[in-house]
């Protein structure tokens, strides 16, 4: 089932024409309404009217997360605050989060795009949709919720956590479509095993799982144990949230909503645009956002874009599951984390950041984080009570700054591995078999 068939099956030439026209408009709009872009364009001596073809976009400057942070909170707005009807935010690389604003029109487009990817993944108005994403500043919960509602499905805003209640709802309300992270889906499967609930006791048919990387083995596992068809989808808060791209039931790459987001792949080192099919960093330009248009936003996700005929009939360009990052961000149970946030948290206890390493491991289906910190004079006490108090305080600081509770471990000085060149802070021991 299509949601907006005309656009989802647009012939390539028409799509390019449409993208070009929208691109001209968004460059002009940003130049005229966002001081930051006005200054950036002028600095390199370029004007919106210099765009004569889609390829010319490569001459325009990139936007990075740091740029968003520097313009915190409202510096990137192209619309007056009175027209803003929703404000979300996402993890900042350090300190301040980045702010994402929507006009009424933006919310309308957003829910349409989420409706598209939900229909790709099998959803229809007959479905009972359980959204087990956090409802809050994170865009996942509200984003999927609005899309499901737009389709006309029956939406249960279960939000995240409390697996026993999720299971009860799933059984009693006869949920047919589950939305959560893939690791949480597996966690639900494990809880079902413990409770003696089988996939025949529940009515799930489809699952849309996103906001963290997962592999084919994990997909097979989830599908078998929950008795559903599982698809992946992709989005990022800075660009709107979920609804950027999603898999159809053919499960061969994610269709990117390129009539709203113009994609490029660049080499993250040279910053040159790479030809279609190359592996590199995904760069997106929003084509229709009113509140916060972003020009050539560097997603930091490493992936590939390619065109191939899809059995579902959609002509939208496809992207692979991201295979990594061009920065040091990592994802814990769907939450984005930058090592610099951990440094920031540690600054409350030490003037100079102690050497630390983050270990990511699996505990059952869920991620577990251990932060090992080399103990220094300021972090060491001869009294056990004070020593334990300090550990508790560090853990509490992390919990409030990172939105999850890591295990904190003190180790002896100079015992953690050192990496040459750029400090590597994260050792990922998860997903070796995913």
């Amino acid at each position, binding site marked *: 089932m299509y949601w907006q068939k005309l656009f989802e099956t647009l012939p390539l030439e028409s799509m390019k024409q449409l993208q070009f026209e929208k691109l001209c408009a968004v460059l002009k709009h940003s130049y005229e309404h966002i001081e930051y872009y006005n200054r950036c364009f002028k600095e390199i001596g370029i004007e919106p009217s210099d765009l004569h073809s889609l390829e010319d976009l490569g001459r325009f400057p990139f936007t990075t997360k740091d740029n968003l942070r520097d313009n915190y909170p409202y510096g990137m707005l192209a619309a007056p605050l009175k027209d803003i009807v929703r404000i979300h935010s996402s993890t900042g690389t350090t300190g301040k989060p980045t702010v994402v604003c929507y006009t009424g029109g933006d919310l309308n487009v957003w829910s349409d795009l989420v409706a598209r990817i939900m229909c790709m993944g099998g959803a229809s108005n007959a479905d009972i949709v359980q959204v087990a994403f956090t409802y809050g500043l994170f865009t996942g919960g509200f984003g999927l919720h609005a899309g499901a509602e737009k389709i006309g499905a029956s939406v249960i805003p279960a939000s995240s956590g409390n697996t026993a209640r999720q299971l009860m709802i799933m059984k009693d309300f006869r949920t047919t479509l589950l939305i959560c992270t893939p690791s949480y889906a597996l966690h639900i499967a494990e809880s079902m095993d413990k409770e003696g609930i089988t996939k025949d006791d529940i009515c799930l048919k489809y699952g849309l799982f996103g906001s963290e990387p997962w592999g084919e083995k994990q997909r097979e596992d989830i599908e078998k144990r929950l008795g559903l068809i599982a698809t992946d989808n992709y989005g990022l808060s800075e660009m709107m949230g979920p609804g950027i791209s999603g898999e159809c039931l053919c499960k061969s790459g994610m269709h990117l909503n390129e009539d709203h987001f113009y994609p490029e792949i660049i080499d993250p080192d040279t910053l040159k645009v790479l030809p279609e099919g190359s592996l590199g960093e995904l760069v997106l330009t929003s084509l229709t956002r009113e509140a916060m248009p972003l020009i050539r936003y560097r997603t930091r996700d490493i992936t590939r874009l390619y065109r191939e005929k899809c059995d579902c009939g959609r002509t939208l360009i496809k992207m692979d599951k991201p295979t990594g990052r061009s920065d040091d961000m990592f994802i814990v149970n769907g939450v984005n984390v930058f090592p610099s946030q951990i440094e920031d948290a540690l600054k409350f206890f030490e003037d100079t950041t102690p050497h630390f390493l983050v270990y990511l491991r699996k505990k059952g289906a869920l991620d577990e984080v251990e932060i090992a910190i080399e*103990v*220094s*004079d300021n*972090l*060491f*006490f*001869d*009294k*056990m*009570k004070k*020593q*334990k108090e300090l550990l508790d305080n560090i853990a509490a600081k992390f919990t409030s700054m990172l939105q999850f509770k890591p295990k904190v*471990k*003190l*180790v*002896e*000085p*100079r*015992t953690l591995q050192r990496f040459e060149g750029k400090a590597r802070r994260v050792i990922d021991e998860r997903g070796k078999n995913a």
Partner: protein
Amino acid sequence: MKIRQISVFIENKSGRLYEVIRLLGGNNINVRAMSLADTTDFGIARFIVNEPDEAYRLLKDNDFTAGMNDVVAISVPDKPGGLAGILHVLQQKNINIEYMYAFVNQSGDNAIMIFRFDDTDLALSALKGARFDIINEKSLFNI
């Protein structure tokens, strides 16, 4: 009247305590008393040594996290109720003991206890007032 104590952070890995002791012993530092507070992940070892400054420097030079702080050593009559007398005074003055341990004493009728207080000066004046036998650093190693 205070005695300097060395404390060392020790990870819960086999052989780590041995390395600390070997380092001190290998450099002619005599450990007269020690205690170990441990958790599943790490321990805090505390030592009374004959050369606290030298021991502290050695540990630091060998990348251990070490601290130096003041404790109080008291000679306690080695008979029933000996320790109780000290604790009674501290309790009456509302002085908290952070931790305490015993000193190796080859001979004599007295045991020597090491006390770590929150407020060392307050504890010292209370104990002096009650005429307990407080031992200073010099004489500690001549026992």
